[in-house]
Structures are given as C-alpha cells and as structure tokens.
C-alpha cells in the first residue's frame, strides 16, 4: 500500500509574507506523479509546457514539470497531507 512518503521528498513553507507551501515530489517518480495528478484535477491552464494551473476541490495550485508544486491557502500540514493523499494515493 503506497504512502505519501513514497511520492513526497520534502515539504517547505515559503519564505515571505505569502505563506505558500512548496511540495517537492520524488524526482525519479515525477512523471508518474504528474500524470496521476492530472487525471484527478481540473486543468485551468497549461503554461509554456512547464506549469499547470490546477484546481482540485476548493484548492488551486501550480504544478511544475520539474516535480514541484506550490499550494496557496493551505491551513496546516494536516490539511496539506489530506489533499496530497487524495491527489496521489
């Protein structure tokens, strides 16, 4: 049974007033992760082939083809983990 640890390398709160969260996915699995996420979300925009602007439930976030995602408006780690679980597992 896969867990978030199988896909997420690191989670980092951004430095600055914005209080966004950056999720670093495991680089070697990034293509699989991106493909899985794209099956579950609404793609609002695909920019320059490297950024996806996405909506899932009430959250909007940006996913980069380098295997990173920036989430806005996530209240805490629990909420983020719940969101990631739905997206990845």
């Amino acid at each position, binding site marked *: 049974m896969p867990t978030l640890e199988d896909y997420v390398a690191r989670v980092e709160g*951004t430095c*600055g007033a914005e209080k*966004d969260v950056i999720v670093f996915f495991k680089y070697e699995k990034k293509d699989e992760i991106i493909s899985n996420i794209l099956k579950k979300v609404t793609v609002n925009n695909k920019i320059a082939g*490297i950024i996806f602007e996405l909506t899932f439930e009430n959250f909007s976030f940006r996913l*980069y083809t380098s295997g990173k995602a920036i989430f806005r408006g996530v209240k805490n780690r629990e909420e983020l983990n719940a969101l990631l679980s739905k997206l990845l597992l």
Partner: protein
Amino acid sequence: MDIQAVREDFPILKRMINNYPLIYFDNAATTQKPRQVIEAEVNFYEKHNSNIHRAVHTLSLEATDLYEKSRERISKFINAKESSEVVFVRGTTEAINLVAYTWGLSNLGKGDEVLVSLMEHHSNIVPWEITAKLKGFTIKYANVKPDGTLDYEDFEAKFSKKTKIACLSQVSNVTGVINDVKRITEAAHDNGSLMLVDGAQSVPHLSVNVQDLDIDFLAFSGHKMLGPTGIGVFYGKKALLEAMPPFQGGGEMIKEVEFSRGVGCNISLNELPWKFEAGTPNICGAIGLSEAVSYLQAAGMDNVQRHEKDLTKYALERLQECRKITIHGPGDISKRCGIISFGVESLSSHDVALICDNYGIMIRSGYHCAQPLHQEILKLQSSARASFYIYNTREEIDRFVEILKEIEQL
C-alpha cells in the same frame, strides 16, 4: 581574469538540471567550490587528519600547522594586525552572536543603546533583540531610503551618548547596496561607540582591510567565498578580544582547570584566539577556507570586483528590456555589488524561482532573511534574487533574461 579557465575549476558547473546546463545565480546564499578547495579537504582527511594542539605526535603537528597557517593567511587577507585577532567560528551568524553574548552581555545594560540599520540580515538583528530582552538595553533602527541605500544622516543622527555599539552590513544581501562603513565607523568612534561590520556579502566580493576601515569587529562566512560550509571568521581588535569573556567553555579555551577539594575548579583562560575556540574546531573547514582565500588572492580581489560589476551592469541593462520586471535597489551601479533583487508583475517570487529552476537557473526567493527591509522599506511580500560570482558569465545572463521574457508572457 580568464573566466572560462575559472569555470573549469568548478566541477559542479558541468551539471545539468532538468536537462538544462546549470546556471548558478544563488551566490549570495552560498557559492560553489573550486576543485582546489575540494582537494584541500580530501588531502587533509587522507593524509593529515588529527586533532590539533596539545599532542606530541606527527599527525597532530601537521594538522595544527595547517590550521594555524590557515589563520595566518586569512588574517593577511583582511589585513588584521595579528593573526590572533582572527577567531574561527561556524559563520557570520555565530560571529555576531559571539559579540552579542560576550561583549554585549558584559557591557550592555538598561539605558544603553545598540544602533543597527533596517537593511540588516536577521543575523545582525536577532542576537541583539534576544540579548536586549536579557539585559534591558534598547535597539535603535536607522532608516533605509526607498531605493535601498542607507540613510546616512539618520544613522548618524541616531548616535547618542547611550550608543555603545553600531552594527552594519557592508553590503546588503537583498539589494547589493554597498555601505560606506568607514564613514559610519568614524561617526561611531567620534561618539565613543564600537563598530561591528557584517561582512558576509562584502569580504567575498571586495577588498576588505580592517585596519584601514578601523572597524572593531568583523564577521564573515567561508561558504559564501568558495570555502566550505560550517566555517567562518570573527575578527576583533586585540584589546577588545582580551577584555571580552569567552563565548563557550570546554577544552582548548582554557590553560588550566585546577581542582581543589571543597572549593571546586579554578579556571585560567587560554590566550587569543583560542580563548574563543572551545572544543575541537572545524579544522578541515579552516584549511578549505584558506584554500578558497588563496584562490581569490590568485584571481585578485580587484578582478573579482571588476568582473561582478561588469556582470551587474550588463544584467541591469538587459533587464530594462523586460516590461514587467521591477528591480529593487539603486540604479547607480557604483552603489551596488553583484546582487539583483526583483519582482515580476502578478507573479510571486517563488513562482519566478520555480520557473527559472525548470530551466536550470538557480535563483532565490523570499525575504532572504531580511524581513524588516522587505516589509518596512521595500513594501514587498518577498523578492526574487539573482546574485553573481567569479564564475558567472554574460552568456548566462542572456539566458536568464530570455527566460524572464518568457515568464513575462505567462
């Protein structure tokens, strides 16, 4: 300076990131290491590794010799009067904490003032804020102008009879602004105050002469000047260091620990600089830093500065082609070093950094540990920052601008 030859010395510059050649523009955070520094560290561990001082065996003698010669080279690099004025620490942050917790706790109290500027890195603010709460002294903040330059008149006006020390970075880690620390040092000394300079962003890029500047304390980090992480330098004038209590207790910083039953231990302190180097120091780090200094000396600090100035001027000119980019800091190139902070209209700095990363360009985003400057002066939520060093090229800037132009189209 032959930049292509310089680049050959840095193995990491051959890396590909996300299938693009690495462009490393995060030098204000840390710099890459030349082969010479890497080899000096490998050589130490392969051939000379031992603890230093107070041993009679051959390896210890060799390690001690390498460590102390490193101190001598670094003291000459900043033109300290004596090598005993150079203390090895973990980095700039530890050096400033050392001053705050030793000199500060024994010399500052209620009614006293410490004067700092609003452009300081958190490492030149937080140690003073913490010790102020312990001792009850006041911290005064000198203003910074909207273009990021120091408000000298305000700084000088804020000196009072209560001011015991002034603390200022020689180069801002956000805007790259170069501060005239000589002028502020003169004002401090005229007022009977001491002067501490944060040299984290200046010593790697400019020729810094502590005797000419007449500063009392200087702090800088090895990893921002081609050296290893975990090693830095605290410089202090000898008379001040002699009067200061030690920072930490343990081995090396003592001469004797005489035990008397019923009385306890009578401790006598070691001489300078070892009084401030408790425990086993980062021996290998010091040797690596010395090799980094040697590398910079061979390149010539004037050449290093000239090269960075050229890159900064070129980058500022090219960035004018970008319509949605705002550059923070002064337009006058003579007032700044190779650090450019900027914003892209309607994008967060983190998005800009992530997009650049996608193309193999490493830049930083956020407050850069200078939240007061961002909030109070620049009125920004965060900024993106590109910072250059000895191995960067105009071609890399061209590529960077090309990507920024793409970002503008998003």
